[in-house]
């Protein structure tokens, strides 16, 4: 694709595409900038232009013990979801793309179904399901609900890496007398690592930002997105945009840091 003849992509339309992409990026980031601005406003109710600035709301976020609780709930859920979903998805992705077996095509499609389903309704269905099994809502149920949606996503992400993987390398190692575990540890895992790493990043971030599944499954406990929503609806304080900014910042840092690690490894 390096030698695309310029005549086929006309200059004017190329410029139009660039401009449009910038417009779309502005559209995406305008409300996020609004959240950041609101978090630095001194008065309780947002007025623009901002007359007096302050970082008090960040101080109050950091010193709030309640928010620390929500933070730890969110982190525990996201960490567990990441670990469990990556382990399940490595196996799932090998079945998805590495091995050829009867029923694979059906499996590929079944596994993807939860991605194509509204999450709020899935959350309620899982809540109903938990009542049958006598499981009380709580962060454990939220982990389960997140897994239902995130395992397919991570399986898909790792599968894309598996498609580019040459099984002959594994077979060569077997021929040289390596055990099954050695082959996985020394050959398969390192080759699939970029996919596994992106999968883990996706799992953590998707769980971290999730609202619809958490809101019906955490019961009395709250995650950060749930607390933000509750405060938006009733009892707004600029702690909402301040914490919103911090969570966005964390997502951005993880994403860029992950990308940076990924490119460094390749060099």
């Amino acid at each position, binding site marked *: 694709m390096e030698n695309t003849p310029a005549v086929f992509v006309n200059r004017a339309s190329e410029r139009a595409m660039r401009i449009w992409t910038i417009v779309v990026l502005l559209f995406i980031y305008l*409300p996020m900038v609004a959240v950041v601005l609101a978090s630095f406003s001194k008065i309780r109710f947002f007025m623009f232009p901002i007359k007096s600035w302050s970082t008090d709301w960040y101080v109050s976020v950091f010193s709030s013990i309640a928010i620390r609780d929500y933070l730890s709930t969110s982190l525990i859920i996201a960490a567990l979801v990441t670990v469990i979903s990556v382990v399940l998805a490595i196996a799932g992705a090998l079945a998805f793309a590495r091995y050829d077996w009867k029923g694979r095509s059906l499996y590929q499609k079944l596994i993807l179904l939860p991605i194509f389903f509204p999450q709020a309704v899935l959350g309620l269905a899982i809540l109903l399901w938990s009542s049958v099994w006598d499981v009380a809502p709580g962060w454990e149920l939220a982990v389960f609900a997140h897994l239902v949606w995130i395992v397919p996503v991570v399986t898909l992400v790792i599968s894309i890496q598996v498609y580019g993987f040459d099984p002959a390398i594994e077979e060569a190692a077997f021929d040289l007398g390596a055990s099954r575990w050695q082959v996985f540890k020394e050959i398969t895992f390192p080759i699939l690592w970029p996919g596994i790493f992106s999968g883990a990043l996706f799992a953590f971030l998707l769980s971290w930002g999730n609202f619809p599944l958490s809101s019906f499954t955490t019961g009395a406990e709250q995650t950060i997105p749930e607390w933000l929503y509750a405060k938006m609806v009733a009892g707004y304080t600029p702690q909402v945009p301040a914490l919103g900014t911090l969570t966005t910042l964390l997502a951005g840092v993880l994403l860029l840091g992950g990308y940076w690690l990924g490119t460094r490894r390749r060099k």
Partner: protein
Amino acid sequence: MMNAPGPSSLPKARKDSESVIPMPGSPTRLQAFAGWARQPGVLLSLPALVVFLFGFLGPLLLVILYSFMPARSFGLDHLPTLENFVTVFQDSYYLSFAWSVGLALATTVILMLVCWPVAYGLSRIFRRSMILTLLLVLPLFVSENVRLFGWVLTLLNHGILDGTVRTLFGWEIPNLLYNVPVIILGMVYVYLPFTLFPMALGVSMIPESCREAAFDMGATRWQVFREVEIPLAMPGILIGALLTFVLTLGSISEAKILGGQSVIMIAHDIETAFTYAQNWPLGSALSTLLILLTGVLVIGLLSKLNIDKLLSRK
């Protein structure tokens, strides 16, 4: 098992031994199954499959069962009835269904138009620029509530837009929030990546040679777009459109946060039935209709797709 048997070697070996030594009864079938079940692919698929069966299929089947229980019952030990479905059609719940379908359709169409140039640029002109991709992915990881709240701050009276216009020109903008167009804006905003990325995948499936050949034969830019690019990118376009439609159909936050109850979405009705109204069977009946609608569309499309071909490109 030691040497990672090829997909067909194991079952075939079994069949051969069966033909030599005929077994009494029907263990042949059993053996064929055992041979199939011992393939590494089958074994490796099990964990993800268990999550699917126990976490997705189970809950949805339970919802469907509950929809046939008498209103306000909390158990499955009643005689099945259709009263909940009658209630759905008599109590104007079809209105929230109609709103949801309408808004989802509008959002999907708008996003197709908005995303095509970006998807095209992303996989052709910007050479899969990583930074651009990251910038477009990031919103997926920020809770949609926070981002929708950003729109509230932007469009509020004395918000970013109103405040800017006031200071610069001294005009006052009428209230922009709490109406249908702003709900659509919120949906377009939240589901943009879900249209964009599958579409970009579709665009990357257009072989350069096909476009060149079409141009060589004197096709115009419009003809190439309509008769070469769109059909070849179709799998990606369809996945993006379906994903967007289905997720928008079952969304709540946009209508709640930006719409301020001016429109009630079907998922909102479902939530109310399950929580405040404590009427699980009614909520289940509404969910069942939603499951049917999305199920028909999603299974219809997925059954036609060749996933290997779609993903192993690049």
